[in-house]
């Protein structure tokens, strides 16, 4: 657009410089009006966003500088960065950080692979099946996380679960296996339920990426004798890199804030405590507003760090994923 406009202006300048000035002024007026309209349209949403996100964030930062317990309001005292010192040097926090990062990496890796396969299936399915298939794949994503967490919990629970009796032919699984009495088995169920629940989301994003690839490219490759694997590696995946990276980033941020599954299934027992749960337990359970806010602020900083790493290091192009031109 701008290139075309520039060329037009150059032609106009050759013909009549006086007319060009007027045109420039008119265009900038229009640009200004457009910008104003943009602000007016986005403004209310922007203000609401500030009110519901920026204000609580600032309040949390402020509260994190105090030693403040909700049931002892009179003993509130300023401790500066003291809370951060305690949190960052505490093995409980470091372990939660490690567990959270671990869950994030494992779930995202599994989900990208599974999600890509599902996206391919949805993309290639014959027309008459497409609707049914997409709906079926999206069902888990439509279920409320707490509900799905309970469903998985009861399925694996030693008293009410059916998994132990259905899968007792698998080595290591028998009726006496208590999934939620050990770190690794608990984490396995937590990760499995998270993957089940959110793979549809990632496959939906990847499907959008797949749909953007012009069919001519693949056709040309196959005419040239490329195998299915070569077409995937050389044509499809490079062309949807932006979509993949956006899907990974969104899911990574989501997975890092995992709460419901852990809260319902183990409530942090057996070393499965994640950062959100630690923040919840400190500010809501123990009513230690200062210390809890410090953990929340650190959680927020972690999320920003993940964003920065993804955008700078992996060059995630958020605009590209929407099909916009740079």
């Amino acid at each position, binding site marked *: 657009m701008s290139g075309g406009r520039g060329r037009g202006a150059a032609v106009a300048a050759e013909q009549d410089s006086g007319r060009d000035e007027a045109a420039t002024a008119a265009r900038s007026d229009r640009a200004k009006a457009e910008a104003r309209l943009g602000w007016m349209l986005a403004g209310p949403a922007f203000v609401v966003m500030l009110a519901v996100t920026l204000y609580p964030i600032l309040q949390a930062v402020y509260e994190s500088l105090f030693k403040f317990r*909700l*049931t*002892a309001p009179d003993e509130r005292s300023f401790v500066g960065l003291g809370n951060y010192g305690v949190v960052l040097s505490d093995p409980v926090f470091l372990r939660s950080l490690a567990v959270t990062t671990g869950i994030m990496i494992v779930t995202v890796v599994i989900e990208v692979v599974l999600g890509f396969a599902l996206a391919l299936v949805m993309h290639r399915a014959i027309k008459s099946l497409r609707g049914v298939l997409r709906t079926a794949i999206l069902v888990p994503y439509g279920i409320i996380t707490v509900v799905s967490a309970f469903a998985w919990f009861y399925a694996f629970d*030693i*008293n009410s679960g059916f998994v132990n009796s259905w899968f007792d032919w698998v080595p290591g699984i028998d009726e006496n296996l208590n999934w939620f009495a050990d770190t690794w088995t608990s984490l396995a169920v937590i990760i499995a339920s998270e993957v089940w629940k959110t793979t549809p989301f990632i496959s939906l994003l990847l499907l959008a990426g797949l749909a953007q690839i012009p069919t001519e490219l693949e056709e040309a490759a196959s005419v040239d004798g490329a195998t299915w694997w070569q077409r995937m590696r050389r044509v499809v995946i490079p062309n949807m890199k932006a979509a993949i990276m956006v899907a990974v980033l969104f899911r990574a941020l989501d997975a890092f804030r995992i709460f419901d599954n852990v809260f319902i299934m183990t409530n942090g027992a*057996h070393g499965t405590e994640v950062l959100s749960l*630690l923040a919840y337990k*400190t500010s809501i*359970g*123990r009513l230690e507003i200062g210390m809890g806010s410090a953990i929340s602020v650190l959680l927020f900083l972690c999320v920003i760090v993940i964003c920065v790493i993804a955008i700078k290091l992996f060059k995630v192009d958020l605009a590209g994923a929407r099909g916009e031109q740079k």
Partner: protein
Amino acid sequence: MASMSLLALTACAGGDEGTPTLSWYTNPDAGGQAAIAASCTEAADGAYRIETVSLPREAASQREQLARRLAAKDASIDLMSLDPPYIPELAEAGFLAPIPEDKVEVFSEGVLEGALAGASWRDELVTAPFWANTQLLWYRVSVAEEAGLDLESGAVTWEQLIEAATEQDKLLAVQGAKAESFMVWVNALVASAGGQIVTDPAADSETLQLGLDSEAGRAAAEIVGRIGSEGLGGPGMATADENANLSTFQSDSGSFMVNWPFVWPATVSAVEGGTLEEPLLDDIGWALYPRVTEDAEPAPPLGGINLGVGAFSEHTDLAYEALECIVAPENQVEYFISDGNPPSNEAAYDDPQLAEEFPMAETIRESLELAVPRPQTPYYNELSIGLQETWYPASSVDPETTPVEATDKILSVLRGEALL
């Protein structure tokens, strides 16, 4: 106070019907509290109306919600059902409206010792005792007979239970889940061994002293660790709460169980509903909570619910009027029969209806007299979670190290130097 209630009255006069509504935040039950609310509303004859609002199921979550609402000066909380260990925290923060002098007498008369202690803070009654709970030892008569244990006469030790279960390859049902119930168990063991988890409950967070690193603490750790590491609690022990315990006890591998009296009506109704076999009922016996050593006193856990009035309520006078109606002994009897929760008032036990519905009523009353409350400190929540963090799972408990670890952890958390 007078101007406040006048204000409240005029405010309400503008509303529909002009009858002030009292909100009673109740712990979930089988509907007994709602029934009492209805009958007291009727008895009030237009002076007030009681509406019940349900709190979360877990005691810790109930505390969470009430404390957060009260910290925000929620005026809608008129009456609340409170778990005794959390009362000191709410009282210390000034979240409970003081009991009028003329009502103190009414609420404490004829109340069992343990229940009264649980309703007080710094030697003052701050809540009205409503019902008092205690755990009994429930046993399968067949297992006890084979082991040659005479439980009718009382005086059974954990050692004897462990031996009987090991010999007959049966499971002991104890609360091994990482939850408040685990703390209840440990507290009962420490108390029966003659110790206290907190030696000076009224101290502040900087100076609080724990009594875990002691003979009593080690004796308790010995029992917990042994049941855990020998697998006597079964594969489900690490996640077993009171309900899971009941299923274990009812199964063929059941032997002994420590649990609240709700297990009796639950089992009776399961038999009536056909999910359990009739002969099971005859095979169930009950006795006082087990002791740590033969010459020790049993120290059964104390539970129950006391009723408090919110400090920010607009109708504190009416709320205390309503409380007087709610905690009346006849309502306590009703409640025991409908919900299986034992009365806190001694007089209620004389009701002939009780002995019929609950053959173990006399044992419950005896147990309530011996019952030892959990530590009454404003920092109870930290204490309980800190203990769960260090003593859980039961199989990892070592008498030499666990009590010391727990003491270090809890004290540093209280000083604000560590996370939980």
